[in-house]
């Protein structure tokens, strides 16, 4: 282990010779290691801060961070946290550019040491560098770095500052393990690790019971999905005797197409993905996860961790391509989640809740993409979504930061996250305003912003898949397509509503408070600007041919780069699909080509945004304190379709009752009864037998003789 760590640092590990091709990895292990180092350093600082503040409390006071300069525990993390991320990002960029020039066909697996070896089953601590993991690494370290920088400004006043950065670095470490691991086992390590960090960060302000409970909820709901992941992994082991990606995908095609085994594996993996990526029915934890600090919501619950499920499905594309039922399930769950979450987002007033449901909805789109075999489209949307959703969350964070300080100045207890208390903020925070509109256009799918390309490709691929020569359930996919289009329109609506309520109209914060509203500091708006740029240009890396040739595209300047880049990953799945489904359709179910529907949807999106802007702008919005309760269908939406209540009634309460039954009756009654009974019996028997212990030597001799006789009798007879 020790020597291996040295090997990571010095030699960059041992690449398998035949797979390496021209691609020469540049210290890839260090990319994972850097956040871990950051975690350790920040963790030490957090512990030291804990000791210092405990000493202060014991001394009768409280640790004062403001007077007399901030202590080292609260200045060093500003360097360490974003610093390691920057280094990791630069390393990733170096590796990325090297891979760009290499055109490798096979993944590069670098093994550092044998993690476990039991009988014929071995798992190496190895990382896999290929086109998919490279994209994920770029997103994780790149967006992660920006969010770390933003956090420096956002969390500055928090006394748990070093602890926050320790958790954040640890999260990145596990996330990189998840995307870089070369086997399902390692992926699972990362999978559980990010779950842990998610739990820690949701409950970051754990002294608030509601927030601690939200962390617990996320953890427990994720466990349900993890069971699926584990079962799928076990099935893989039983079938192939290995869980290494390369080996599994190599052998996967020996399974029958559409067979029950591969379908079961794919569906169990999807259960895991649904837990981690907040899909129906396991999405309920994500909205509650907004209890964590806003940058955490941006990093973990929007840009990276929740996309792990999409990454998993894309990674296992071969298995899903072999199981059309699983593919249909994935796409179906995805499209339903997209619509369902979008409807809930329509009526939410908490700015972060809107974004949370929006995230759930967008994740649904990604699953539609990977479900219909458009793996590159799913990953593409994952990437653009990471840009604009991180931007939206960070923008919301800047707004909340400002609102919080405004209310703090007057010691008001109004909700700093409630959009009904905002309005007119564009005058106070112009940069945030502009960047968030860019993100809104992107998520609404308006040309030329990033979301337009990724979302339209997913919707289009749904139609194309349904129209394939031997498509399994053509009607079903037509329904998917219609729902996906509808959900896209809802997206445009609720995002515009959010923007209008937050930034436009008159200010509802309060006279005194509004004086304290201000633009975010540069350390916070700089990441916003970078992400805004990415949200504008990010889509142009993957422009479909039919759009490129039209007036919407830039012709020869752009290409379907991402699609081709991911081809080595998806080739096998695409091949299986082509062999079994025939050619994909070139027209939508109701006619029209890709370009036409892209044009229609962007025009519709613009129309929805414009209408909503006027509609919501004219409506009078009252501050939260004076608002009346909603009625009818709006109330149902406001209360999120009562899904949480339904789960409480149908799942949580029966489990509680059963548990209580097992506790009171089975455990305390029967099991404890048996245990105590055994004890009492032993005591009783002991009491009776102790009667023989008379203290009289004759009796002892007598018993001894009887014993001798018994032994003698046994040996004789």
């Amino acid at each position, binding site marked *: 282990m020790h020597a291996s760590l040295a090997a990571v640092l010095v030699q960059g590990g041992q690449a398998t010779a035949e797979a390496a091709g021209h691609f020469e990895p540049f210290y890839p292990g260090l990319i994972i290691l850097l956040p871990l180092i950051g975690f350790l350093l920040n963790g030490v600082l957090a512990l030291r801060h804990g000791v210092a503040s405990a000493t202060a409390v014991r001394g009768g006071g409280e640790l004062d961070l403001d007077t007399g300069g901030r202590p080292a525990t609260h200045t060093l993390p500003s360097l360490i946290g974003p610093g390691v991320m920057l280094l990791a990002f630069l390393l990733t960029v170096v590796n990325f550019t090297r891979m760009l020039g290499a055109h490798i066909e096979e993944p590069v697996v670098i093994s550092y040491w044998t993690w476990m070896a039991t009988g014929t089953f071995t798992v190496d601590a190895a990382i896999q560098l290929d086109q998919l993991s490279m994209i994920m690494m770029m997103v994780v370290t790149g967006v992660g770095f920006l969010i770390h920088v933003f956090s420096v400004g956002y969390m500055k006043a928090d006394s748990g500052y070093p602890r926050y950065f320790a958790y954040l670095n640890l999260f990145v470490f596990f996330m990189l393990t998840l995307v870089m691991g070369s086997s399902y086992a390692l992926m699972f390590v990362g999978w559980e690790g990010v779950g842990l960090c998610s739990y820690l960060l949701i409950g970051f302000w754990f002294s608030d019971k509601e927030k601690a409970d939200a962390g617990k909820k996320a953890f427990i709901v994720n466990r349900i999905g993890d069971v699926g992941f584990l079962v799928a992994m076990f099935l893989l082991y039983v079938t192939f005797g290995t869980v290494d990606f390369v080996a599994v995908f190599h052998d996967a095609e020996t399974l029958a197409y559409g067979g029950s085994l591969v379908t079961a594996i794919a569906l169990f993996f999807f259960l895991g993905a649904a837990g981690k990526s907040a899909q129906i029915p396991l999405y309920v934890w994500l909205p509650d996860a907004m209890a964590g600090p806003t940058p955490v919501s941006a990093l973990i619950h929007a840009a990276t961790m929740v996309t792990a499920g999409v990454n998993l499905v894309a990674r296992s594309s071969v298995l899903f391509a072999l199981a059309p039922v699983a593919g249909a399930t994935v796409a179906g769950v995805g499209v339903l989640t997209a619509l369902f979450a979008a409807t809930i987002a329509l009526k939410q007033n908490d700015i972060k809740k809107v974004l949370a449901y929006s995230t759930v909805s967008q994740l649904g789109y990604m699953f539609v993409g990977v479900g219909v075999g458009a793996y590159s489209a799913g990953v593409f949307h994952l990437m653009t979504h990471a840009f604009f959703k991180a931007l939206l969350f960070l923008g919301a964070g800047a707004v909340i930061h400002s609102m919080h300080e405004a209310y703090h100045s007057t010691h008001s207890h109004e909700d700093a996250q409630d959009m009904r208390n905002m309005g007119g903020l564009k005058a106070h925070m112009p940069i945030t305003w502009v960047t968030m509109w860019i993100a809104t256009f992107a998520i609404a799918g308006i040309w030329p912003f990033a979301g337009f390309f990724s979302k339209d490709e997913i919707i289009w691929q749904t139609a194309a898949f349904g129209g394939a020569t031997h498509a399994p359930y053509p009607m079903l996919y037509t329904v998917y397509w219609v729902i996906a289009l509808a959900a896209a329109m809802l997206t445009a609506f609720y995002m515009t509503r959010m923007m209008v309520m937050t930034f436009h109209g008159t200010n509802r914060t309060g006279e005194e408070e509004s004086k304290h509203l201000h633009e975010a500091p540069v350390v916070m708006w700089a990441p916003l600007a970078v992400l805004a740029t990415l949200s504008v240009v990010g889509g142009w890396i993957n422009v479909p041919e039919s759009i490129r040739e039209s007036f919407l595209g830039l012709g020869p300047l752009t290409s379907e780069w991402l699609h081709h880049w991911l081809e080595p990953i998806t080739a096998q799945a695409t091949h299986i699909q082509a062999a079994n489904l025939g050619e994909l359709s070139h027209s939508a179910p109701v006619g029209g080509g890709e370009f036409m529907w892209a044009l229609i949807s962007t025009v519709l999106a613009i129309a929805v945004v414009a209408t909503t802007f006027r509609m919501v702008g004219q409506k009078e919005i009252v501050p939260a304190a004076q608002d009346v309760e909603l009625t009818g269908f709006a109330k149902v939406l406001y209360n999120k379709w009562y899904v949480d209540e339904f789960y409480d009634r149908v799942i949580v309460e029966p489990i509680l009752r059963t548990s209580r039954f097992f506790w009171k009756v089975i455990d305390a009654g029967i099991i404890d009864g048996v245990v105590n009974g055994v004890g009492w019996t032993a005591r009783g028997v002991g009491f009776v037998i102790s009667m023989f212990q008379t203290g009289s030597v004759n009796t002892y001799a*007598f018993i001894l003789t*009887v014993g*001798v*006789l018994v032994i*003698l*009798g046994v040996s004789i007879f």
Partner: protein
Amino acid sequence: MVDILFYVFAAVAIGGALGVVMAKSPVGSLLFMVTTLASVAGTYVLLEAHFLAAIQIIVYAGAIMVLFLFVIMLLNLGHDYHRDLKGGAYAVVSFAIVGAMAGMLQRQLRGSGITDAVASGGRAIDAAIAEHGAIGAIAEPLYTTYVVAFEITGILLLVAIVGALVLAKRNVA
């Protein structure tokens, strides 16, 4: 002639043994014991174990029994002439147990197929006695094959002496 002698010895031994168990006074028991020991020594002679017969008389009937006698006299136990047999159900059960034991031994003996014919082991002893004499016959293996056990027995006796001294010494308190 030998058989008659054996049965005489056996009768005296059994009578003595019963006397040990039944005698009222400890001294009586002791004297019955000496009788039994002497008779058993006689049977040893008949079984060609001359040396053992000698030390049975010298060590057992002589030294150990005298030691017992000394203790009895030291504790002044010679006078309590009441029977100290346990009575009642306990005695009945004891007799039953002992009877069962006797039955088992008898059954085992009958089933063992042992005859009165002297086997090769016995003939070897006879030859050794003829060659080395009665003492030489037992001394030769004792000081060669079993010399370790013999030495350990010496240590055992030493420990016993020390132990007896420590235990019996009157505490000077």
